[in-house]
């Protein structure tokens, strides 16, 4: 399993406060662990240095405060410093009132510019009610123009492009000092003006930052189109080089913001810290998947709490609100509490959860779940058999779950198992868990304390009653994380098996 920044931090803090008291010596020791954790998360060496120095200064300065739990104090200092480094929140996109707003996307090859361009267009259409036009200014990579056209088509957003080889004829062509990419961009903006689009997104060619010639092309585009926003698209998995590329792009292009991509991988934001520290430019959005709706606004405090393993309830709730309306939510809550909850409601909720994203990602946002999830392998199909089972029930059964319980329900359960391609045991389990869930929710409803779930230990107490919760707990009680050499042995065994 991977060592994310949050795990390493947790390890550091566990060790740091096992003695209970905060002394100058264990501050140093603890900060060494923090330093290691940051480096393992690919935060730049120089940024780590600065970070540690700042935290140390604040920690030592605040040690005199009496009556405050020192461990809480240093967690707060580290977290505050992370938030300060990555903040402030700023998801604004500068809008030009005189002409179409121009957004220029720049970044290294393979950072995800074209996909992000598509995501940004979708965001502007749906959240900001804009009418974007995409301009294919990547004349380098084969089929980059086609890629943008396919994206535009699926979004219903127009794409402006020119044939890469097409040179201007005659004298003007010869004397024109602008590069082709810059011309395409300028023509694209004109096209937007004429066709009533109010935002233009320029998808430029990816390049290595040290490539002077291509950097000049970008500068040309900038000079000719005067973009209102220049966004640097950056791969969240980037290592120590993040500071160099971000600095280069910022020095030459004066970027306005950063979009961090591929955060759905198991890398954890080390680059975010570095880039923000070295450019001073805000991280506007993050990309969390290949699908075009996987673009989220960047919130430093959420990122910091994710980094510190404190979960991310706010994002979870926001996601839920996107797929479930307030009215629906209220309706199902009343049914839950009044004990009228049935398999139809359950199915509806399952489908809503599916729309919110991969289960692992969602569970990871719940405080305290992060470390549990390490032991469980997620395939993304966890909910499928449950859905199949419910779909194999008759409408009557779905509305009257009691029909399935007890001896009398035996033949029904066997039929459902056959129909859904599962086993009777699985059907039994679902029915049992459904009942347990209903009972628990009913109780919670009576006490009126859904909030208790969010207190430390609340999740652990509630889990055994939730579907799959027991398995999670069992996995967790298996003890500490397996050591790396153990993994190695496993791999060796696998290889041996393969040879046989």
């Amino acid at each position, binding site marked *: 399993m991977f060592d994310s920044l949050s795990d390493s931090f947790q390890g550091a803090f566990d060790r740091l406060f096992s003695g209970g008291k905060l002394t100058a010596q264990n501050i140093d020791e603890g900060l060494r662990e923090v330093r290691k954790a940051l480096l393992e998360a690919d935060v730049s*060496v120089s940024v780590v240095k600065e970070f540690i120095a700042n935290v140390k200064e604040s920690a030592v300065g605040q040690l005199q405060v009496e009556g405050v739990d020192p461990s809480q104090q240093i967690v707060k200092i580290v977290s505050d410093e992370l938030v300060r480094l990555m903040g402030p929140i700023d998801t604004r996109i500068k809008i030009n009132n005189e002409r179409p707003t121009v957004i220029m996307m720049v970044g290294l090859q393979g950072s995800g510019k074209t996909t992000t361009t598509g995501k940004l267009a979708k965001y502007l259409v749906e959240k900001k009610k804009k009418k974007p036009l995409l301009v294919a200014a990547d004349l380098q990579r084969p089929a980059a123009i086609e890629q943008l056209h396919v994206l535009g088509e699926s979004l219903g957003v127009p794409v402006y492009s020119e044939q890469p080889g097409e040179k201007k004829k005659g004298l003007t062509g010869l004397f024109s000092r602008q590069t082709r990419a810059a011309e395409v961009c300028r023509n694209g903006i004109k096209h937007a003006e004429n066709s009533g689009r109010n935002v233009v997104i320029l998808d430029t060619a990816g390049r*290595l930052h040290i490539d002077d010639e291509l950097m000049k092309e970008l500068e040309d585009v900038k000079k000719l189109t005067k973009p209102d926003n220049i966004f640097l698209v950056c791969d969240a998995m980037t*290592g120590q080089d993040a500071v160099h590329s971000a600095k280069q792009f910022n020095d030459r292009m004066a970027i306005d913001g950063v979009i961090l991509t591929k955060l759905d991988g198991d890398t954890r934001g080390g680059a975010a810290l570095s880039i923000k520290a070295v450019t001073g430019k805000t991280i506007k959005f993050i990309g969390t998947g290949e699908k075009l709706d996987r673009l989220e606004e960047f919130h430093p405090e959420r990122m910091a709490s994710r980094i510190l393993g404190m979960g991310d309830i706010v994002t979870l709730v926001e996601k839920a609100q996107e797929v479930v309306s307030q009215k629906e939510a209220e309706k199902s809550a009343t049914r839950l509490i009044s004990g009228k909850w049935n398999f139809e409601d359950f199915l509806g909720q399952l489908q809503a959860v599916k729309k919110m994203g991969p289960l692992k990602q969602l569970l990871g946002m719940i405080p305290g779940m992060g470390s549990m999830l390490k032991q469980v392998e997620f395939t993304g199909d966890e909910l499928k058999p449950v859905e199949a089972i419910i779909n194999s029930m008759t409408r009557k059964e779905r509305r009257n779950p009691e029909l399935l319980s007890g001896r009398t329900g035996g033949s029904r359960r066997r039929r459902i198992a056959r129909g859904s391609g599962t086993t009777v045991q699985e059907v039994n389990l679902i029915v049992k868990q459904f009942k347990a869930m209903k009972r628990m929710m009913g109780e919670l409803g009576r006490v009126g304390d859904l909030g208790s779930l969010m207190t430390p230990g609340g999740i652990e107490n509630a889990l055994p009653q939730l579907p799959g919760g027991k398995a999670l707990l069992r996995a967790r009680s298996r003890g500490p994380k397996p050591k790396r050499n153990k993994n190695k042995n496993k791999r060796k065994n696998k290889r041996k098996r393969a040879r046989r």
Partner: protein
Amino acid sequence: MKTLEAYLTRDNLIAAGLALFVLLTLLILFWRSRRGGEKEPEILDPRERLRHALGKTRGGLLDAIRKTFRGKIDEEVIGSLEEILLAADIGVATTDALLEGLKAAYRKGEIQSQAQVLDYLKAHLKEKLGGAGGKLNMAEKPPTVILVCGVNGCGKTTSIAKLTYYFAQQGKKVLLCASDTFRAAAVDQLNTWADRLGVAITRGQQGADPASVAHDAHEKALKGGFDVLIVDTAGRLHNDKNLMRELEKIARVGKKHVPDSPHEVLLVLDATTGQNAIRQAEAFTEAIQVTGIVLAKLDGTAKGGMIVPIREELGIPVKFVGLGERPTDLAPFDADTFVEGMFS
């Protein structure tokens, strides 16, 4: 004597204009070539190119060592060395191990000069990395099947173009298989390369089952007497179990046609990636036994040091490095040059 006006005939004016035009064109061309001439000269020897690419230094860390090293290995020297190693993405664990070894050697009196400090580190790194550069496992009976995988945007398709060129240069008959049916226009991208390089390609429709495309390609490779089949796969994040399973399926389908295939499973890693590359290598090799790494984008300032822990922990060697965007920009991995570059 004719008056000046007599020269100003229409024909003469056109002629003068043309002459001026030609002159200006030449001037522009000359100016452009001058500007172009400032570019670094083309280097053809792959070793030289690797050295050149890695030589892009990031400032005076070595100077720092030179200044701080006074025949003694103290905290300051260790600190500077640590910074060099960490900045090259070697990772904390490997860096610590290397420096512990260095301290031990110093205590034994094996290291007395600054040169010996660097020699010690370089020698250990070279030893760890050497041996596999440029060596590909070829099938006894063609076709040799090479499966290329990696995360999104790591440079798979460009690396395949380079490998194709590499084999075509050796006179091999190459077939490409465009199995990336997921990303928009990925098939077109590979198709463009196939056209440019003049090799055959089997392609699927957008959204088609990648394994079925691989199936067709294997069949075609066998029937058409191809020497090498290179299978491009869609970029996938290594923590996506479903997509990793899809990759297993592609390999499985191939085995039905060519039992000992794939002969090489090349994982393309982006040299700018940090410690996450280790997780990538782990996950990909768990799914389909990776046999070698192509380290792409090494022409930037990134040093690609994460290949050290990957070799140490997983035993996967780097076989080729990518040094640019053209098909010719591929060099066999050379441990000596690579390690020297890390300390430049």
